[in-house]
């Protein structure tokens, strides 16, 4: 394996991964902040660095719809979107999963209207949580590159055949220039086998895709899809192992940072984890028994790994970068559900913050942890802590 370390915007690192994956079709509509990904892909196609059909569709709905078509004839297919674009696609996302079309998508996560806000948070990803896609979160440009390549291998694996999304925090990751190791073509070709869709639309072997299911079959169809999404974890773990062996960069569904033996564990997802790490370093230096756990695999939800990582702690503080209006914060609610069946469960505090691009600096994280600890000590864990809100 050889790779080159370059300073590159994370969006462009994703495009490099897509180029190395030698995709056949890209269909995209310009919604900032994913725009740089598809702009650079368009440029590669225009200059012959990537041999692909680039479909400049007239909406995000059509972007994902075109992806259904190209994927169904057996072409390796990629798109990128964000925010309103992702929720405009929502209807089509469910079909991609139910037709078992292994489309790969990068989402530069950001807030949803209203009010209109173009900055980052996880609102868009949470709304599409139940669509049947494999969903992976990353924290920096290197991970964005690595996971985009892994996504093709996972999605297209004959035991999986499910669409896969890489969630990249809008602006905080997508627009940041970082050092990234870009793999060489030969290594990518060894890691990523050619796409071979088992049942393409083919006049020599005509199939019907997208039948309707009456009440006598719908439940079975949904059950089968759910089982497939859950079963995909095996291939995800295997792919990450292979990628780790190739590059030395290993990934796990749940990743711990100085969390062993910690009394209190902060749980984060996405790029704010890196600020949280700095806060954890400082707090440990001060002698506090606090660690960090980052959730990487969002769907299928890694119950066992979450239980393993958190069960020994007394306190868990979960940060959500999305709000479920009138309900529990989405990541926290799933963490709580995963812990509920344990005999000895930690107390869980739920914090919502970093909405619509608001920063949470390492110092902010310390304040956030203090606030949460007060609530945990007082046993007030029902209420969500809205961090940094000006009342």
């Amino acid at each position, binding site marked *: 394996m050889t790779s080159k370390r370059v300073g590159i915007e994370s969006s462009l690192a994703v495009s490099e991964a897509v180029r190395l994956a030698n995709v056949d079709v890209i269909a995209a509509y310009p919604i900032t902040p994913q725009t740089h990904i598809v702009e650079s892909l368009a440029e590669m196609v225009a200059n012959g660095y990537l041999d692909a059909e680039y479909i400049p569709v007239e909406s995000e709905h059509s972007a994902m719809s075109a992806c259904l078509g190209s994927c169904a*004839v057996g072409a390796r297919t990629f798109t990128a979107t964000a925010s309103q674009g992702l929720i405009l696609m929502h209807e089509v996302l469910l079909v991609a999963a139910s037709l078992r079309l292994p489309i790969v998508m990068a989402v530069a996560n950001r807030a949803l209207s209203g009010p209109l806000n173009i900055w980052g948070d996880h609102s868009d990803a949470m709304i599409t949580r139940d669509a049947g896609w494999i969903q992976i979160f990353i924290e920096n440009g290197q991970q964005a590159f690595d996971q985009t390549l892994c996504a093709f291998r996972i999605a297209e694996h004959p035991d999986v055949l499910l669409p896969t999304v890489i969630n990249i925090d809008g602006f905080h990751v997508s627009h940041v220039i970082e050092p990234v190791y870009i793999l060489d073509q030969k290594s990518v070709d060894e890691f990523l086998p050619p796409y071979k869709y088992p049942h393409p639309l083919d006049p020599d*072997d005509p199939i019907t895709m997208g039948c309707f299911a009456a009440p006598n079959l719908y439940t079975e169809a949904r059950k089968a899809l759910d089982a497939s999404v859950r079963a995909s974890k095996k291939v995800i773990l295997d792919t990450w192992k292979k990628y780790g062996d190739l590059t030395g960069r290993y990934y796990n569904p749940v990743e711990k940072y100085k969390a062993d033996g910690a009394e209190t564990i902060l749980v984060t997802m996405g790029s704010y984890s890196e600020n949280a790490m700095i806060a954890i370093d400082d707090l440990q230096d001060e002698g506090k028994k606090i660690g960090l756990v980052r959730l990487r695999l969002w769907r299928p939800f890694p119950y066992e790994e979450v239980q393993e990582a958190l069960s020994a702690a007394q306190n868990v503080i979960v940060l959500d970068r999305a709000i479920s209006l009138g309900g529990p914060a989405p990541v926290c609610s799933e963490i709580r559900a995963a812990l509920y069946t344990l005999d000895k469960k930690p107390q869980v505090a739920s914090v919502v913050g970093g909405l619509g691009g608001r920063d949470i600096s390492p110092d902010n994280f310390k304040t956030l942890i203090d606030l949460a600890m007060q609530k945990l000590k007082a046993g007030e864990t029902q209420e969500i802590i809205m961090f940094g809100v000006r009342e």
Partner: protein
Amino acid sequence: METLAIYAPKLVTASDYIASGHRACSGCGEVLAVRYVCKALGRNTIISNATGCMEIVSTPLPETAWEVPWIHTLFENASAVASGIESGLKALKRKHGYTKEVKVVAMGGDGGTADIGLQSLSGALERGHDFIYVCFDNEAYMNTGIQRSSETPFGASTTTAPAGKLSMGQHTQKKNMPAIAAAHNIRYVATSCSSYPFDIMNKIEKAKQIKGPSYIHILSVCPTGWRSASNLTITMGRLAVETGIFPMYEIEDGKYTLNFDYPKLRPVEDYLKLQGRFRHLTKENTAEIQEHVLTEFNRIRMLAGKKIK
């Protein structure tokens, strides 16, 4: 036409690509039209079908009536899916040694074409994908229970634009989809009707020869929604054409040709009186429809370079 009818059936392929046993209503003109379209398309075809009657009657899991590769995903996106299929095949040919010559076809009803699917159709036509779009226009959302669409004709009563004490039903004129398609400067646009099998097949044959997008709008008689006798399906379509209500024409590279002209059009009354959806119309309403039909027919005649009679 009369002499053609004697020998032409022998020239038509016996192969069908939509099998009998589908669940269309008796007297369905749309499924007849689909059958002729498929005959003319042949086996080297991939169909992207919008949600609607033809999807529902042909594919209850685990059955299918389709003998060509066929995909249904959603209501409003048949053209976008077709764009993806066409682009995917192009990439496969260029990069992976794919050699088959396949025609990509998107199809939908009037709602899936002129209402909810208009944006994705416009996008696909504008981008110039090599595909045929076929609109099977039965003039309302029949699959969901006869709700009005923008293709429902003036004066028709539907469940969402019903005739009542204060309403004569649909109060807007039929949206001119062929003109909208032609405004994308595509090479071939045509209208046809489920009662004219050879016309349908000839026009599909022409569209197949076009490299790039083409659009065919087929009036498809719907006894269920039109509240007409199911044994009059062929008659109804012919009356729509012979009264001038549905002109049959082609637009080739912008040039109009009127395929069926008559020294004297039949009165619209002949067509309207056989359908329950028009039963409430007054003499004044009928006169208004008659005047509009003549104006529109003369407009097409003029576009086709004919003298106004």
